[in-house]
């Protein structure tokens, strides 16, 4: 994880464990913290840590550098800093475990893994089907490449938060 400090703000990038995220907040009680919480429920953190002023989701951020950003109040300096760092923040008012795009995409990735588990098709054919049958910008396995640990973390977090078995991860997500 990396931190970027400016004025009284601290932006925390990266996808550490919940405990690691909490440690950063505890170590910075006087700062206004903006934190990547892609794999967790932002509300849980807002409730516990008043120094947390905003959250964002950069796990699936690609070359377009667009990220979902939620701030408790409009923070022009934060937006300017993200832009300076090369990101294009898309502000949201929705506070949801896994935000909007990561939460949707991990479920698509999970189903693609279940289909692979069931031997429905190869990874390549599943990627191809989703790109050329419904115009997805990437195939599910292209999205999850190198990120499976975090995909599984978010699915488990959703499972724990909701108790809904729809979030049980495929055993092929390791």
């Amino acid at each position, binding site marked *: 994880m990396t931190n970027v400090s400016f004025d009284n703000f601290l932006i925390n990038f990266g996808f550490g464990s919940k405990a690691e995220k909490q440690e950063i907040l505890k170590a910075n009680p006087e700062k206004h913290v903006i934190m990547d919480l892609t794999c967790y429920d932002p509300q849980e953190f807002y409730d516990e840590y008043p120094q947390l002023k905003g959250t964002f989701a950069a796990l*699936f951020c*690609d070359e*377009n550098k*667009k*990220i*979902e950003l939620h701030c408790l109040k409009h923070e022009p300096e934060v937006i300017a800093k993200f832009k300076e760092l090369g990101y294009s923040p*898309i502000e*949201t*008012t*929705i506070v*949801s475990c896994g*935000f*909007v*795009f990561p*939460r*949707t*995409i991990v*479920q*698509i990735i*999970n*189903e*693609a893994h*279940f*289909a692979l588990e*069931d*031997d*429905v*098709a*190869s990874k390549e*054919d*599943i990627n*191809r*089907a*989703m*790109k*050329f*049958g*419904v*115009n*997805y*910008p*990437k195939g*599910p396995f292209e999205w999850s490449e190198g990120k499976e640990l975090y995909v599984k973390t978010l699915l488990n977090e959703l499972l724990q938060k909701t108790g*809904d*078995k*729809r979030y049980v991860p495929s055993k092929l997500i390791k």
Partner: protein
Amino acid sequence: MNISKVIVIGAGTMGSGIAQWFTQQNCKVELVDNSQAQMEKALKDIHSSWDKLAEKGKLSNVDELKKNIKISPMDQLSKDADLVVEAIIENLEIKKELFKKLDAYFESHTILSSNTSSFPIALMAEAVSDKRKPQFLGLHFFNPATIMKLVEVIKGKDSSEKICRDLYSWFDSKDKKPALCKDSPGFIVNRVARNFYGEPLRIVNEEDETKIKEVDNILKEVGGFKMGPFELMDLIGIDVNYSVTCSVWEAYDKEPRFAPHKLQKQMVDEKRFGRKAKRGFYKYD
């Protein structure tokens, strides 16, 4: 594999699109439908589409293409076709009855296929003779068939592995992107895509136009999708999407990953089917 003569059965949107695409691959195509008016309309639309492409300079062999497609009554179809693609109404009994007739009518080398999106290939294959079963499979095209690149090549229980692979290679050599898949509910796309709708529905959870717009916007802006899930459900038809969701859910023994959301049922009950009803997740007055 040589595919030079193709029969397309059903002259609706999918059937006529499939017929047009095969003709554009220099195949000789016969398009058949129960309704003479429907066949004539489909042929007129296909010709008109080629004329427009020619006007734009995107097509040069219109006259040749027009010669290579014809509409035909069922009892006058060429018995020596290489491939038959069925694209009729999604009714299992009607399809089975049709395949029984087709099996008896066509020569032994003809491959019979279904463009079904919802029925197991194995169930339809019950209608054909044991001799034909290796040459029976699914070919699931996507709408519009002349533009969407994907064809799911679905291998049924008794489909020949070689025929499926040869067809895969044949489509691959044309301007299609085939995907080989097992005969299982929803095949690839209608299974994996379910959560593109199901998860956003759970994120908004109730009718809230601001949230719905925001979710659509994020998935387009951040995710790079061409349409947001709510816009897309409105376009497809909320009733159609709900029906596919229920069908996949039932087929997987009510597996929670495929469970429909209460909002879908509520909107169907209220006849808010999307664009076609001018009311869906958005209003279209």
